[in-house]
């Protein structure tokens, strides 16, 4: 084990997988000579050369699609988006092609590709650089969506994503790249896609979360503990496939659940988890499931407005108290 930054954990995963399989390459804006917009790919050019660490023009639709075609033809591309906000320009390639080609050609091809980059908000970046896209992509069959919150999970899951034989979206956060955490340095240590992790045990309320806002939830759990409420934190890690077994096992213990999701409320991950809980764990719930999400409003720039927009520790604490009928 080593203590690494999130970006270093990602780099180690990419480096190990590129060393292991010469068909793995990475492509995206500024990944090569510039060493990565967020320095995830720092040093990879020196090791692997221009053939396997490829700078692209600012043409998301084009290079995402070239990645899909290369994956169909035997390679294993890692396509870096500077942010998933820009990946919207490539949505046709992700949604209409990567996820569907195998099925519509009756299984004649596979698309082993990873699309990765930061997702959701990262401070005062304004409306177009702050969107959480995971539930949108999770809507479509044929796409796996990973959104880890800690460096150790990030490495093990990214390695699984690169070795997966189908399309995987791997989501990060600009604000987590410097975050440190314990990382397993065994090159064969993989974390399976689609498995949630109980990150804090507690008997009173289950807090379901994923991605960067996990760290808000950790703080909220500490606050709740001060008031005698022991929260159990389930970090989904993978949004699709969604590991409801772990969520339900926790709810059977706590009988109360708050879903904390750094996305807009409509048809998001929180809505999905809430539906599945009422369907599959109705009798185990002592209170309706509460969700804490962004409002149905685009990201504002102004600091006070942004702070009002982004779910706070207090919002999570209040959510927990709501399912505890305590205020």
């Amino acid at each position, binding site marked *: 084990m080593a203590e690494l930054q999130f970006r270093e954990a990602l780099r180690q995963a990419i480096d190990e997988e590129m060393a292991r399989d010469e068909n793995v390459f990475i492509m995206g804006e500024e990944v090569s000579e510039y060493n990565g917009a967020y320095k995830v790919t720092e040093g990879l050019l020196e090791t692997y050369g221009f053939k396997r660490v490829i700078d692209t023009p600012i043409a998301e639709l084009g290079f995402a699609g070239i990645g899909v075609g290369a994956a169909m033809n035997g390679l294993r591309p890692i396509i870096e988006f500077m942010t998933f906000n820009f990946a919207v320009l490539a949505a046709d390639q992700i949604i209409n*092609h990567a996820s569907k080609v195998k099925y519509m050609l*009756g299984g004649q091809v596979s698309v082993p590709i990873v699309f990765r980059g930061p997702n959701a908000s990262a401070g005062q970046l304004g409306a177009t650089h702050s969107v959480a896209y995971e539930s949108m992509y999770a809507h479509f069959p044929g796409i796996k969506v990973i959104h880890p919150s800690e460096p150790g999970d990030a490495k093990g899951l990214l390695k699984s994503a690169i070795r997966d034989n189908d399309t995987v979206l791997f989501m990060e956060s600009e604000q987590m790249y410097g975050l440190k955490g314990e990382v397993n340095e065994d090159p064969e240590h993989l974390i399976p896609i689609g498995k949630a992790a109980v990150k804090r045990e507690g008997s009173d309320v289950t807090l379901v979360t994923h991605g960067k806002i996990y760290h808000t939830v950790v703080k909220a759990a500490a606050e709740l503990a001060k008031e005698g409420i022991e929260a159990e934190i389930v970090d989904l890690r993978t949004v699709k496939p969604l590991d409801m077994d772990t969520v339900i096992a926790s709810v059977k213990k706590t009988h109360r659940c708050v879903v904390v999701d750094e996305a807009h409320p409509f048809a998001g991950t929180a809505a999905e988890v809430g539906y599945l809980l009422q369907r599959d764990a109705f009798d185990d719930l002592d209170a309706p499931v509460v969700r804490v999400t962004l409002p149905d409003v685009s990201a504002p720039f102004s600091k006070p407005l942004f702070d009002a927009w982004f779910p706070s520790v207090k919002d999570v604490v209040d959510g927990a108290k709501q399912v505890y009928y305590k205020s």
Partner: protein
Amino acid sequence: MTKEAIFTPVGKAAEELATPKKSGKKGDSLYEKAVDLPEPTTAAPAKLGLKKGQLLEMFESMVLQRRFEERAMQMYQKGKFGGFLHLYIGQEAVSTGTTAALKDDDDIITAYRDHGWGLVRGVSARQGMAELFGKATGCSKGKGGSMHFANVEKHFWGGYGIVGGHIPLGGGLAFANKYKGLDRLTTCFMGDGAVDQGALHETMNMAQLWKLPIMFIVENNGYAMGTATRRHSTGELWERALGYGMKHRVVNGMDVLSVYEAMKEMATDVRKDSMPWFVEIRTYRYRGHSMSDPQKYRDKEEMEEFQSLDPIERLKTVLLDKKMATQKAIDAIYEKVEEEVMDAVEFADNSPFPEDSALYEDMYSEPNPVFHR
């Protein structure tokens, strides 16, 4: 601002549109025809290195593509299957001349007008017809239908339904071939409508930048659905190559020998230089965009003019004139093809639909994938 200036094309196209070429009376052609065909090749088949046997194969292939689709249309009208049905009829010289000129392991990818492309790349008439019928025996197991014929084993990567969406995929096929050091070129076909899509331009830029062994080939049949080329795209289509410094060529797509000659030369060049080409092959489709197209955007004279240039009739004339085939031999080919197509219809009709369990197959590579429910 003049009244005419609003939302009309600019430049040459505007002049052509604004100037009636003929009287403008009913039944008279108001505008220039859909595409101006360049002169066909003057080289004799022998000079192109084409032997009698190959020419007969090409002829049979074109007849098969034509009859396959004529029967498919009948079956559609009889209600044997639903969905879209975009017919390639009139454009067969493009698929046939191309595959004859390429090596068997060169990659081909195209849009949704793909039946002919499947048939020239190893999709049998039976597998093709069964795919149209949505049967388990179809080339894509009945999961693709008319727009998604494919034979990946034979390097036909399929037909694609989002206009322009498959162009980056073509770029990726070429990228992988170059990455792996294979002496294999990619031909990425598209309709004239796709020329306006950003996907083409992003891919052309990267292809030229990275020296990808690919040919971007427009089958300009004069219409993007119902909008004439000069009404949807400014200037000449081939001029798109100029902005990228890309090699380019305009080819007569109603003459299979012209297509063969051009493709052979360009393929040799791509193998030598690994630099892309942008190619405009001018052709014509005789049928509507799909089955529900009343075709009010073009007139009868235009259709008749292009039908008089029919690529199958043209090759037949060459075969007869050069005494490479007798009328009897030609007739025998038509009969053989007719039998093959009728057999395909029978096969498709008698084939089973996919099992219910097939619904969940081919979504993922792993044996027991998780489906959300």
